[in-house]
């Protein structure tokens, strides 16, 4: 696995404000990495550093084999795609004209323009002016723009804002196809349940610092969050809390015929065995901690001013 992005102790300061604090990060080819964090956590700063729009105050960055803010930028920029968070394209132009403009700037074959418009589902609206586009259509146009020239690295800042569920699914299908071709994808998102199935690893940032980095399994192991087990059936009368000798297992009856158990990972099987042996239990549901739980867990240690909209 070749490293596409390498951060070594990267710090970025704007005056007295530390935007990013000694970040170490390696992203390999064909990986999908999610950047998660509150507003002002350093997500956009990280992207701008990768794009070479900002230079690090300390430390070094290498993207596709060179520093993105130096002479390497010219070659680098032809091989990466970027979708900024808030972008409104030239409204008097049509969707196709906008894309043709960007294709020419990137020196990409213009036949790709129509293909990409089809691919993001704007084929029918290609001749309409961007002014008449909905938020979702603009977002898809932005995505088409980022995909120009078959980039090796894709940076997507909040790519699914404004997309309906079907379009979101289409979007992640596109991401998966790109990844199969060996494209590396970095995406930041607030919509945590949406990204979970599609990412390889997540980087959780808070107050400019790296709070956690790893695959969902790694993060789960690191956080050691309890799994929730829900049991349903004829459960009246049983004192669930007293059934477990361990205090680590928390039982919470939801109603007369349902109970939620909070169970540490290593006790999971023991509890399951116990439940299956119980005559009243009809159904058991296993709910491992989601990305959202992990995110809450890892950002819990932050001071309030770091967690809020500190800009």
């Amino acid at each position, binding site marked *: 696995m070749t490293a596409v992005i390498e951060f070594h102790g990267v710090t970025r300061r704007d005056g007295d404000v530390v935007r990013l604090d000694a970040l170490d990060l390696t992203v390999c080819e064909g990986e999908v990495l999610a950047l998660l964090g509150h507003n002002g956590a350093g997500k956009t700063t990280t992207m701008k550093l990768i*794009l*070479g729009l900002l230079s690090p105050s300390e430390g070094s960055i290498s993207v596709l084999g060179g520093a993105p803010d130096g002479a390497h930028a010219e070659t680098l*920029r032809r091989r990466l795609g970027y979708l900024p968070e808030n972008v409104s394209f030239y409204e008097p*132009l049509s969707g196709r004209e906008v894309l043709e403009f960007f294709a020419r700037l*990137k*020196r990409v074959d213009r036949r790709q323009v129509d293909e990409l418009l089809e691919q993001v589902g704007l084929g029918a609206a290609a001749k309409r002016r961007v002014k008449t586009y909905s938020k979702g259509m603009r977002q898809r146009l932005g995505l088409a723009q980022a995909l120009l020239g078959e980039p090796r690295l894709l940076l997507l800042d909040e790519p699914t804002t404004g997309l309906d569920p079907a379009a979101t699914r289409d979007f992640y299908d596109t991401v998966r196809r790109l990844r199969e071709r060996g494209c590396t994808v970095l995406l930041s998102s607030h919509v945590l349940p949406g990204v979970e199935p599609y990412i390889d690893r997540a980087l959780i940032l808070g107050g400019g610092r790296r709070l956690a980095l790893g695959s969902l399994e790694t993060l789960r192991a690191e956080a050691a969050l309890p799994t929730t087990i829900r049991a349903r059936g004829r459960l009246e009368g049983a004192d669930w809390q007293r059934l477990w000798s361990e205090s680590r297992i928390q039982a919470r009856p939801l109603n007369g015929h349902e109970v939620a158990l909070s169970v540490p990972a290593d006790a999971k099987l023991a509890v399951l065995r116990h439940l299956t042996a119980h005559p009243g239990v009809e159904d058991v549901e296993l709910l491992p901690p989601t990305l959202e739980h992990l995110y809450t867990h890892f950002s819990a240690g932050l001071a309030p001013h770091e967690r809020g909209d500190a800009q």
Partner: protein
Amino acid sequence: MNAILTLAGKEFRDGMRNRWVLAITLVLALLAVGIAWFGAAASGGLGFTSLATTLVSLATLAVFLIPLIALLLAYDAVVGEQESGTLLLLLTYPVSRTALLLGKFLGHGLILGSATALGFGIAGVVIALGAEGVALGELAAGMGLLIVSSVLLGWVFIAFAYLISVWVSEKARAAGLALVVWFLFVLVFDLGLLALLVSVKQGGDWLPWLLLLNPTELFRLINLAGFEAARSYTGLTSIAVGGAFRPAVLLPLLAAWCLVPLGLALLRFRHRSA
């Protein structure tokens, strides 16, 4: 180079689409024809009077209008793209910042240039066809000089608009500053110079040289200094009739005036954080 042409082409197409080119052409053509026809209205006459009067009136009109149009056309060139988020995107494309600004300048310059040439050109043709006893050679030369100097003047103020646009971070502020620049160069400078002229009792040989500090004065000198008839209209420029103040010297000076703000804008843009 390709990137510059791409950017210029897009800017020009924007100008065509949101009717900038059409509007500027029409305004200039209508006003120019109007001035040519009603130029004698003050003295009770109607119809075309003399070429000199017409050209002087046209130049006086252009000196107010062209800078205003140029500033309005281009004040949001950079800050507007920044507000809509496309600037950030453009900076991640394989295009240098210098090329970005030069491409836009070329596009805006083409919009203003073609509209001015067309507008005044139409007026010139109308005068040639409609007025009696006009020496066509003189008309062509006078109109040609007016068009060339107007276009240069427009480019100077586009460059000023860019300098404003790369300096501020809000569109509204850029618009305000553009009006201030127009006010200073077109109105205040003149008044200040006039006051100075009146207050300096003797030895004011250096005063005419102050005219070179303002591109609109250069424009006036180019178009007015050649005409006897212009003396009574202009007052100020009459102090500057000397060997150095010929169009052949003044035109390059006006062109140089456009490079100064453009160069500063480029410097600023390259060191501006994204």
